[in-house]
């Protein structure tokens, strides 16, 4: 690892087979801390599978996933999803998955790990978790205020707009002080303006908390003006990588998208 830019995540020759079908083949990417990384590629190119491997839903058939917890790198492939989350990696899904019977603020409050009130013995004794809860509520409110969304605090997900839902999904990570965000098609189904505001929110989050984003997105035009590095997957292989404009110029990429 080079000294000047700290990396937070790296995959080394990660391959994945499903019943012999090769979905990922020797994919090696490195994610610099504090960056916004785009992960693009046509459908079925293995982007989501890569996410699933990083977040512990699948075990890679080959290769390993390294993550910088505290200060040294550790292998996280093979951990269970919740253990990986506790290391500070949070993901969102293509179809947003807020908890429908919880209000927005509860959706935020539920995210921090290791809350004292989560053990049965503490849960029955209020004072053991009252303080912590108040602080969490403060934090949640401040986060909502920061993106001046305070009015949705007590709405249920069913009452929210798509954009708000996606935003809340991202904010859940903030609540838990996540350091690495994997967003799966955050812009899908958003109109141009809303999509851009969401991206701006993402930038804002990055700048003010110095966290890292990996974004799967098909709407390359919007993506390219946000991200500072792009990986391009095609048929499970790493096809191209580099600064957005370089990748855009890359003939293979064009070919892959336009289609052979």
């Amino acid at each position, binding site marked *: 690892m080079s000294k000047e830019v700290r990396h937070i995540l790296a995959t080394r020759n990660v391959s994945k087979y499903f019943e012999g079908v090769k979905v990922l083949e020797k994919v090696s990417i490195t994610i610099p801390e504090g960056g916004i990384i785009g992960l693009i590629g046509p459908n079925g190119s293995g982007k989501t599978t890569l996410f699933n491997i990083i*977040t512990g839903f699948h075990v890679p058939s080959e290769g390993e996933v390294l993550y910088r917890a505290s200060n040294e790198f550790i292998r996280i492939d093979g951990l*269970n*999803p*919740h253990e990986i*989350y*506790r290391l500070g990696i*949070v*993901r969102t*899904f293509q179809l947003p*998955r*807020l*908890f*429908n*019977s*919880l*209000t927005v*603020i*509860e*959706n935020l*409050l*539920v*995210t921090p*790990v290791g*809350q*004292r*009130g*989560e*053990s*049965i013995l*503490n*849960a*029955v*004794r*209020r004072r053991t*978790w*009252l303080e912590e*809860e*108040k602080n969490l*509520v*403060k934090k949640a*409110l401040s986060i909502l205020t920061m993106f001046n969304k305070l009015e949705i*605090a*007590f709405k249920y997900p069913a009452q929210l707009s798509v954009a708000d839902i996606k935003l809340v999904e991202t904010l*859940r990570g903030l609540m*838990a002080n996540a350091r690495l965000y994997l967003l799966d098609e955050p812009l899908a189904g958003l109109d141009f303006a809303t999509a851009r505001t969401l991206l701006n929110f993402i930038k804002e989050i990055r700048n003010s908390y110095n966290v890292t984003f990996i974004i799967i997105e098909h709407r390359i035009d919007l993506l390219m003006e946000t991200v500072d590095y792009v990986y391009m997957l095609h048929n499970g292989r790493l096809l191209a990588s580099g600064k957005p404009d370089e990748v855009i110029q890359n003939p293979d990429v064009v070919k892959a998208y336009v289609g052979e």
Partner: protein
Amino acid sequence: MIDITGFLINWLAYFAIYAILAVTLSLESGISGITNFGKVAFFGLGAYLGAIINTYLLLAISGVDIVKAPPYTAEGVIALIEISTLNPALVLGVFTLSILVSFIVTGVFGYLLTYPIIRVGSGFVGFTLLCVGEVLRGIYVNMEFVGGTNGLLGIPQPFIWLGIPMLSGLCYLLLSVTILALIYIVTDRILGSPLGRTLRSIRDDDIAALCLGKDVPKIKSKIFFLTSGFSGVAGTLYACYVSSVNPQMFVTLVTFNVWAMIIIGGSESPIGAIIGALILTLIERILPLIASLNEYLPFTPDYLRPIFIGLIMIIMLIKYPRGLISMKPPKFTKSAVEELMREAS
């Protein structure tokens, strides 16, 4: 003359036992999403544990030869009756012990069942647990030690030594209601706490919860330990209330009565569960009075009882499909937030 006090005492004690089952079921099924169709397994296990301890141990301590006079023979029963009237301290002590033991053992049993629960996946938990219940019943039938199909008899009601039936009944009622209240408070606290929030999130979408760092199997097993333990306590209470157990008492229908209670009352709130239990147990006890229509009907009037119960269930469900009490967001978080927001503005 109808004897209202006696009616109330008998009914309410019975209600309290079923309400315990309903509350725990609403906690595990309505709130944490473990569809438990095997409630009777834990109920029955608790009942049998209570029965065994309250008979065998009692006999052993008071020096009766268990081999010669086991509790499923007349000798054992007679001995038990004497003991239970002569030695209050011992009876109460053993009873308390049996409550504790059945809580722990049944709880651990539930805890161990977490593995199949997680493994078969949310859609099949229900039937898996139902099978557990049936297997247990099959085991009781074939265990000579617990009397086989004959079951055990003469389990002392812990207050019988008071002599006056009304009084001992009242004491037992108070005891059951106290335990119910205790369990209700615990459930309510859990519901209003971060744990309750986590449970509801797991119920809504366990995969998302998993991605948000919730160790779903661990949390489920903890809750299931608690609820199973409480069901076991209910079982022990029941065994000492009826003062006899046999395998036919613990058929699957019991489970579904409890389910009817929580669905009618509102499966996501313990108070709803209690109200459901109140309604159904009361209906069961009031309706037999229609049997006094004997000479007016060409058939046995009491056949109408289940029909009425069924009708009431269906009508209530169509009228209140979400149950009589719908779930409200936990009191505490809301209030805390409001006060904080007031501070902010």
